[in-house]
Every structure is written in C-alpha cells, then in structure tokens.
C-alpha cells in the first residue's frame, strides 16, 4: 500500500501532462467573477466601456494568461523563491518607510520608474510562500513546539508592524490573519492558540485605546454612530447602506441604480463596487456573488486537500484565506459591520495592482493543483 503511493510521487512532469491537469473549474469561476466586475463597471460608467469596464476585462485576460503560465512553472521554482521573495518584500516595505510616496495621507507606495508598487500587496503572497516553505516537512510534533514558533511569529510580526506604521490597519490585519491561519493549519497547539487569543485580546484592546491614529479612531467612532455625522465621515457607510437596502430583492435593474449613477456612492468602482452591484441586482445578486466566492474558495480548499505535500497544502490554504479575508472584510465594510478600511473586492473591484496579486495567488493554487503529487525536498524547519 505504502510503496504504491511512494511510487506515484513524481519527480518530473512533461508539459503536456501539466496542461491536461489544469483545473478548468477554477478558471471558469474566476472568469465568472471578472465578468461580473466588467458588468458592474460598465453600469457605473452609465453604460460605457470606458473608462474602466473594457480595461478591467482586458486586464483580467492578460493576467489569466499570466496565471496559466506561472501555473506551469515547476513547483520547485516557487519553493526556491519563497524566502527570497519574502526578503525582497520585507526590504520593499522598509523602502516604503524611507522613500515611499505619500498618497492620501498614507505612505504605501513605492515609485520604481513608471511603476508604483504597493509592497504590502507583494508581502501577502510572499508571507504565504515563506510560511508554507517553513512548515514543509517539519514534523507536526515539532511544528507545535514553542521553539519552532519563534521564526513564524517574527515572519508574521515584522511585516505587520511595518504595514501598521504606514499606516494601513486593514492590510496589516489581512497579513496577520493570513499568517496566523497558516500557522494554525500547520498544527499550532491549542494551548498556544488559547494563550494567543487571550494575549491578542489584551493587546488589541490596548491598541484600540492607545495605538490608534486619529483618523482610525474617527473611523471607528463613525462606524459605531454613523448617523451622528451623516454628511461627514459617516456619509460613506450611510450612502452604501441606502444603496444596498433600496436594491431590495431583485434590485433596481441593470443600469438603473440611482445611488451609484447619481454619484452618491463613494469609491464605487473600487472599494464600494459590491454596493453598486447590490443596488442594481438586489439580494439575488449579492447572494449569488457570495455563493460564487464560496465556490471559488471551496475549489481552492479541495486543491489544498488533495495536495500531497505540506508546502502545497499550506500555500493554497494561505491564498484561500487571504482571498476569503478580502471578500469578508470588504463586504462587512460596505454593509456597515466593520469600520471603513481600504480593502477592495477581489476580481470585481477595479484596480490593476490588486487583480495582479489575486491572479498570482491563484497561479500558485493552480500550480499546486498541477503538481499535487510532486515529490518535494523536505524542509528542515529552518531556513533551508
């Protein structure tokens, strides 16, 4: 039995075999998501392909090809690049501290020639890769030991602190959440989890009381009492809820959203795109989008489940967790469950940088799906 399985671990894979193994269900689901994005952006522009709908579609097409290309690359390349990628991302984050460009009060961008880079975006994926690489081959018993907790804690903590300092609370929490989820999946002991939860609670409360920037405090204040300042900071949440609520069961009809077309919605092409969708397609529309996201995540987790190496399982799960957090945080924000943080809705929101990050993430998922039976060199639990 066991020999049978060992025999099936592959060492090399011809390109034709890889092409056959592409997970077309995942491709179809992603295309569906991007098409919804195009449709909503078309409607927001008062029924026009410009300035965003067409570009969104074209961009997705290019990134889809890129994704398939990256999926075919030997998985060992991804593994080999895990730590260097993490190191580069960390350096870039430090670079932002030093020479970053300020956009709307936050230092998040790095100007490299014609490209403006958001290193936090790179870090999300790099952290997933690095943690998966770290835990790959590390025995479960050892993975749960405190001694082997130090490095992952640093790997998660450092970028979090740097991103927090930008300041970008939302992304910091996304990065932290993803990292903790991977550590949890790798086998963190429940004792440590309990302890961490308690410490996290205390730290979180302390941060809320002492560590928040004024604008962050204001956002939370607004979130708790949006009606106090309907024309000011609470405006966004209120208008967003009005748009969603007035959509009702079946919506105001495609191209018929008054809130979005009369410009009451803020950031409707990026962070609040879900609201525009909800106004025109109603509860049926929003629920369908939720279902689509759940399907994508389920497909992803099945890939993780079938992978026969820790690196694959954890990396895919990490991408899925990041993706899920994006969706949950964005939708919670636009329906007023959590304060406004600048997190877009993956696949649907307009924006090249985020879409690129999402598609590279799914390239990793696809890559692991193709290489699920690959025989990978085991890690030692350290940097090799």
């Amino acid at each position: 039995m066991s020999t049978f399985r060992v025999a099936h671990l592959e060492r090399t894979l011809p390109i034709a075999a890889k092409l056959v193994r592409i997970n077309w269900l995942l491709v179809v689901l992603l295309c569906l998501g991007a098409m919804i994005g195009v449709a909503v952006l078309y409607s927001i522009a008062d029924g026009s392909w410009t300035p965003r709908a067409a570009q969104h579609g074209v961009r997705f097409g290019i990134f889809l090809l890129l994704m398939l290309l990256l999926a075919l690359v030997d998985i060992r390349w991804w593994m080999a690049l895990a730590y260097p990628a993490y190191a580069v991302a960390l350096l870039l984050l430090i670079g932002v501290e030093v020479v970053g460009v300020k956009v709307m009060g936050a230092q998040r961008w790095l100007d490299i020639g014609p490209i403006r880079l958001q290193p936090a975006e790179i870090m999300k994926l790099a952290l997933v890769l690095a943690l998966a690489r770290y835990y790959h081959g590390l025995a479960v018993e050892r993975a749960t030991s405190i001694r082997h907790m130090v490095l992952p804690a640093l790997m998660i903590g450092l970028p979090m602190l740097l991103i927090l300092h930008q300041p970008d609370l939302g992304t910091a929490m996304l990065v932290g959440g993803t990292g903790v989820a991977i550590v949890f999946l790798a086998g963190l002991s429940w004792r440590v989890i309990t302890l961490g939860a308690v410490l996290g609670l205390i730290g979180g409360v302390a941060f809320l009381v002492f560590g928040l920037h004024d604008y962050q405090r204001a956002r939370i204040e607004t979130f708790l009492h949006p009606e106090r300042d309907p024309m000011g900071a609470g405006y966004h949440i209120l208008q967003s809820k009005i748009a969603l609520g007035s959509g009702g069961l079946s919506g105001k009809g495609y191209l018929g959203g008054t809130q979005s077309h009369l410009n009451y919605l803020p950031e409707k092409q990026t962070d609040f795109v879900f609201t525009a969708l909800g106004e025109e397609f109603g509860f049926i529309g929003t629920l369908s989008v939720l279902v689509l996201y759940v399907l994508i995540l389920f497909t992803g987790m099945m890939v993780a489940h079938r992978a026969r190496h820790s690196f694959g399982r954890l990396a895919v799960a990490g991408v899925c967790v990041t993706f899920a957090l994006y969706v949950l945080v964005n939708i919670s924000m636009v329906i007023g469950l959590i304060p406004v943080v600048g997190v877009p809705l993956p696949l649907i929101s307009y924006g090249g940088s985020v879409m690129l990050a999402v598609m590279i993430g799914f390239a990793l998922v696809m890559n692991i799906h193709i290489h699920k039976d690959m025989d990978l060199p085991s890690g030692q639990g350290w940097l090799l």
Partner: protein
Amino acid sequence: MARRRQDENAGELFTRRALVLGGAGLGAFGVLAARLYKLQILEAERYRGLSDDNQFNFQLLPPSRGRILDRNGTPLAENIDNFRLLLDPDQVDDLQGLLDRLGAIIPLSDDARQTIIKAVDRRSAFSTVVLAENLDWQAFAAANLHLPKLAGVRPEVGESRQYPSGTSMAHIVGYVGGVPEEAQTDEPLLRHPGFRIGRTGTEKALDGRLRGQAGALKVEVSARGRVVRELPDPATAAIAGDDITLTLDHRIQTFAANRLEGMSAAVCAIDIRSGAVPLLLSNPGFDPNLFANGISSPAYKALLDNDHKPLFNKVLGGTYPPASCFKPVVAMAALQHGVTDGKERIRCTGKTKLGDREFHCWRRKGHGPVDMLGAIGTSCDIYFYEMAKRLGIDRVHDAARVFGFGENFDLGLGGGNDGLVPNQAWKRARFGTSWSQGDTLISGIGQGYLSATPIQLAVMTARIASGRKVVPHLYSDVGQGIGGADGGFEDMALPTQHLAAVHAGMTAVCEAPWGTAFRLGGLDLGDIKMAGKSGTGQVRRISTQERDDRVRRNEELPWKLRDHALFVNYAPADEPRFALAIVVEHGGGGSSVAGPPARDILRELLKEDMKNTASNVPGEALGAENGA
C-alpha cells in the same frame, strides 16, 4: 518512510483544521448573507425611501439682491441678467480638452483658463466652478448649442451687479464680491457658485437687508449637486432683498464729481434740519463695476499706487488740520466763557511773541485792531492766538468736542476716523511732555495736533449754523426720528447773541467786501446769502530761515507739500438749510481753491431743493418762502 508518515500526519491534521477554518469561514459568509437579507429584504422599504430623499433634492434659488437707490429713486446699484457657464468638475475627465473645445466656442483667455484650473484644484467637495460670466447673448447661445459636446458644463442665467452711477458713488454704494473664506458660515447660500456679498460701502454695511432669502426648487440631483431634472412640485420662491434708499442725490453727487475733476478732494453736505446727507464725495473715485466682476491685478495696482488714493473714502476717513475753519469754534468758546465780549478789539501787527517764539498772522502786514466780526471775516490769526491763550487748551478742547470734533461719524459705513482733539492730558499720555502755551496758540487757529475729517467739519458747520446737535445720516429709513424736517435735534443751549455774533462773522467772510471769500461773489441766488469760512491747512513746517527769507508759494512746492485747501459754508445765512465742508488735498489757498467749488455745489443743492420742495411739499419749502 518517516517522511511519508510525517506528511500523512500533517495531512490529517491539515484536513481537520481546514474543516474548522472552513466552517468558521462559511459561518462568516453566513453572517454576511443574513445581514444582506436584513438590509435588502427586511429593511428595503426604509432604504428605498432614503434613496428617494437622496435622489430628489431642493436646489437653492439665490435671491435677487435689493437695489440701492438715491433719494429720488435713481438706481445706484442694480441687477442685470448674467449669462454664465458653470462647471461640475466631477463630470470631467479631461479638463484641458474641455477648455480647448470651449475656447473654440466662446472667448476664453489664457488668464481665465488658469483661473478655472486653479479653482478646480481648490474647490471643496460638491461644489461647482464658474467657467465664464457676463457672456453676451450670442456666446451664451453658442455654448448652449454645443452643450452635448461639453459634458459637465451647465448654463445658467444668474444676476450680476451693476453700478450705473460708476465712479462718483463708489465709496458710498461700495461693491459686491465673492465670499471670502473668513466670511463663510454654514449658510448654504454663501457656497452657491458665484454668489456675491457686499465687500465695501453700503453693499457691505447693509448686506443682511440687501441679500434677501434663498428659495428652493425640487430637483433630481446627483450627489455632487448636478441637476438631472427639475420637478414641477411646489418650490419656495426666493425672497428678494430690500431696496435701500440713500439720502444722497445722484445729480448733486455727479455735479460735485465734475466740479472737482482732477482734484484729490473730499466734500460732504448735510441737510441741517434732518441730518440727511445729500452729498458725500471722495474724489477721485473708482469704478465699482471693475470690482464686482473681478478686477485685474494691473488695474488694482494702479488704483493702489495713485497718490490721490481713489480707493480711500477721504470724507469719513481722511484727517486734516481744520485750520481757519476751526476759528468759529474758538469764537463760540470765547464768548461762552466770557474771555471777550466780541466787541473788544485786538491789535494785529502781523505777528505776536510768546516768550522768544514768534507767531505769525497769515497777513504779514497785519489787520490792525480787529473785533470778533472782523477777526472771523478776515481770518485774523493774531486774534485767535489771543482767544486761545485766554481760554486755555482744555476749554478749546471741550468746545471742539461739543461741535463734533473727535467723534467718528462713519454713517454706518465703517472706515471712519475720530480725528484728534488734543488737550493737556492727551499730550502727557502721548508724548510724556507737558502742554506748552505755544501748542495752545496754534490750536487756536486749527493747526498743530488738531485734526479732523471732512464730515466732522460739515457737522461742525451744521451745528454752528443751527445751534442744534445735528447728527448726519445716510439711509432715509434709518434717519426717521433722528432729525426730521422740523429740526428734532437736541438744542445745544447756546445763547442766541453768541450764535448771532459767529453767524455774522461767517456771513461777512462771504458777503462783506473785506471778507476772505468775498471774491467768490456769493451764491448768485437772489436774496439768499451764504455764510462760510475758509481754511488753509499747513502740511509742512516753515523754518525761521525761510520765513525771514521768503515763504515759498504753493506752486513752487511739490504736490505732497502744498497746503490743504478747506472751505466750510452754509446757506441761507439767515435760515440755514444746508451745511457743506470741502477739503482739496494739497490744493493751496482755502478761499481761492476750495471756495469756488464749495459755493457752486451749495448753490446746486439749494436749487435742487427749491425745485423739489416747490413741486412736492408746499409750505415747508424754501422756494415758497422766497415767493411769499
């Protein structure tokens, strides 16, 4: 083998924990779904209402600004249709391109383009920007025709302010301008694009009454305030601002402006019975229309650099030594305190000594012995040095205050000046030195520290002429009850014979062959006599050496060093109706330079009054009395 087991262990652990995580994730999605259900199904009705509230809005209808009229109803400030184009920058992706297209349709200078681009950069949320104003009908029609090509551009017919009387009324009427940031309140009208508030003069002083109240129109609007369509639903109409009637007479004002052409001068007249001000002119003026439509910086700089100070209202804010015009006040005080009986003669030899200082009379060879009548009529300095010496500065000071010196008569316009009436306490506080008798002497002839505004001189003249505490006013409805046609002003309780003595002196100035202003030839209005007093306000100090050598004549001096020419007068001398004061900056001699326009303008006032009263209010009129 070990590794494989290890992988399987890790795999099992992963699956268990992934199920936990997946369950949590599914739970989170479930919460979102539940929340969306509540929002979109259970509360849909409520949010639909709020959405409608958003969609339909009340748009501000700016009120029509009240007009400013002269006493005869001639408009001094009125509104004309303003064809303009507004821009909603949120609808525009390519501003340069839009401006290029617009520039092909209407004239658009590079300056204007820069201004628009700056305004778009600086604008606050939800606001529109004015693209072009005061377009002619052709340009406006052309822009409307091309509107489909100009997304974001909105045509509007607004109102803009016009000042038909132009320069002569500029200081009083003032002008309107954009709302400065410091004047912004939460009143939405102030944010309305292109809304103007009063910035100076009456426009500013009575802005609240002129402005009116904004109305509202129900419209479907975008969040940025762009109107999608107007709805026929009831709307509240805007309430126009009040018209304000001034006491000024446009005709007189224009006459005075023409008469003082080229001079840097201030003239002001007061209706002695009511306190109404029919004339208040600071010359040169400026064209308020320039300001109402946004003045160009070279034009503004030219106004600022002009040494005749066209932007400054000299009547209310300019201070000058009252010079010999002050002498009647000293005479009144001398009689009141009994330091002379008026008949006493003082010998004028052309100079007098105080210690080792010499004080000169303007007439170097002297006037010989003069009584009060002669002293006022010939404006003898030696006589008034003596009177001031006998009175002492504090009594001179008190008398000056009673006649209106040192009091700010800004007529509600702002920008008035107190002038200065010195006394011993003042000098000690100001310079830390004690008052000298020499100071008293030159105060006696209205020089030295003493300074006064032209309107104070007019008030002084009105009070001396009537013996009543006349207070000037500019707004007819504000003036009711202050004075009134029958002279409701407080009686100053001055003995009739004292008044008569000073009146006689001032009448002699104009009517006696030896009077300083006899050359003017009187009013030339039949029996009506004029009383007055000239003054020549010294601007520079004349050194002893120059006095010994030869005092330079005004024509030999640079303009800035020449004497101020002053003249105050009232008429008719026996039943005073109008008091007038004029200052010609650096004009030279009072009676020769300021006298003629003062006489002409006073005559014009009387003629206008006769015309009006003869046709309107019989019985009370001057003309009627003449006819009787």
